[in-house]
């Protein structure tokens, strides 16, 4: 049996000192973007939030990206989120979206009740806007249709959406966004996705 002595060194406990509470609540609200994208599984809304998170990092910001979906990978409602902030992020889930997008009616009907009058909303043109929708501003854009007719491939709708979202929110520079898209699309699809990004940007009138 071993007789090794217990170490007697003083134990270091990681300590974070009491920080002054974040300067002013209203200021914090302005810098923190809480983005929630919804649609149907397979439409690529998770990838869209990953790209926005990547772009946020390119722009030197803190990001937290997560998603919720059922056991089925395709077809069910899908919710993906990204928080982009100037300061380190505590809670990693979106509480009060500052931006919300829906690509399907089912997702819109399911997630619309969580919205507030501070939220900017982007809906695919094919959706019916619920009468009771609370929002600061509602954009409607033919995201799904443009992916098919202008880009030529339905599955680029998520990249079209990424372009439109950044045109609305000015989250990052066009260059950072382009870099982020290129680092997450499959090899051989760069040109197609570049086109999708441009089509998306043009959907929003500045």
């Amino acid at each position, binding site marked *: 049996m071993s007789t090794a002595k217990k170490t007697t060194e003083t*134990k270091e*406990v990681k300590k974070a000192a009491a920080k002054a509470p974040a300067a002013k609540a209203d200021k914090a609200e302005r810098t923190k973007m809480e983005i929630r994208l919804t649609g149907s599984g397979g439409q690529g809304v998770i990838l869209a939030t990953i790209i926005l998170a990547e772009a946020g990092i390119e722009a030197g910001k803190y990001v937290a990206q997560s998603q919720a979906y059922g056991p089925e990978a395709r077809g069910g409602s899908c919710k993906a989120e990204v928080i982009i902030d100037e300061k380190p992020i505590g809670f990693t889930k979106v509480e009060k979206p500052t931006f919300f997008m829906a690509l399907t009616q089912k997702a819109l009907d399911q997630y619309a009740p969580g919205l507030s009058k501070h939220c900017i909303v982007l809906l695919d043109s094919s959706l019916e806007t619920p009468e009771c929708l609370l929002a600061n501003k509602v954009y409607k854009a033919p995201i799904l249709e443009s992916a098919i007719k202008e880009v030529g491939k339905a599955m680029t709708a998520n990249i079209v959406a990424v372009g439109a979202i950044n045109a609305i929110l000015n989250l990052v520079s066009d260059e950072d966004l382009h870099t982020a898209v290129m680092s997450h699309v499959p090899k051989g699809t760069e040109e197609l996705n570049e086109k999708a990004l441009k089509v998306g940007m043009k959907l929003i009138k500045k």
Partner: protein
Amino acid sequence: MGKTVLMQGNEAVVEGAIAAGMRFYAGYPITPSTEIAEQSAVRLPQVGGKFIQMEDEISSMAATIGASAAGVKAMTASSGPGFSLKQENLGYACITEIPCVVVDVQRSGPSTGLPTSPSQADVMQAKWGTHGDHPVIALSPSSVRETYDLIIRAFNLAEKYRTPVIFLMDEIVGHLREGIEIPDPKDLEIINRPVKKFAKQNGLPYHVEEGEWVPTMLPFGQGQRYHITGLAHGESGFPTNDNATAGKLVRRLIDKVEKNYDDIVQCEEVMCDDADVAVVCFGGTARAAQSAIEQAREKGIKAGMFRPITIWPFPSRELEALSKKVKKIVVAEHNDGQILLEVQRVVKNNCKVDFVGKIDGSVLTPPVILSKIEEE
């Protein structure tokens, strides 16, 4: 420090494990841990390692132990249902003193429960899931960056103490993507298990030197033959029914972890110095608690957070000291009260202990924790 990259918690497990020297992964994919298997399948061949998808979780655990017995740092990952299946062989790794890392990305249970929903209800299973008295080291990260650092620590502790280390994650961190700076490999402390040739071919593989905690037998395949068994054994490695020998073995197995508390146990205190209320939480829940204590301070309540990073052994000493300073402790976890039991055991009547939990698969939010902090 290099460039900041966007990484998922599950990916950070694999990248950190490879940096720690992992060169073998055996597993059977299960949500929300699947990305660990996927990423291991991509990355291990790139660094000369091996990935194998086994027929189930029982064999995955067996293969992990087998690879490590041959001297290769090995890991397996699963979620609750698979973690249940790994328990028998986990005990085998404990008694045979074969280092390995077992990741459990917890999900809502019991049974197959809610596959994609977060939970932290395997805390007690991590300690008592495999039968018999045995040593347990379990670590739990609360961010992607910490996941990277802590999985390296998991391998180091496994190697140093020749015992399985349980990496207790949750869906919140496993599926979270954040920006992290990957540390330079040369800045990392990597520990390899102590090995030494035993004196002669029929020597004593399980002999433990005076002043040491673990045996130093060579890995299989390096020239010395010996016997490994899940039965109680003495220094020879062969089974015995001798009570004294068996008692001495189990005592050493437990003591090598419990008596090295200072080396193994880590915890974090945030804004605890002047706190009246402390939230005790671990893993992904800490992110909600962090926001909750910041909001409490904005309202003028002196709130802090105490976070066990090492779940087992539980950081009893540090929590006991804190419980003598604060008026109230709020335990927040995604289960029906598991860490709570440890907190109550440690705190006794030093201060009030409140609890807020979740068992429906949804996420504990800052306002829910805040209202518990505010409660009289």
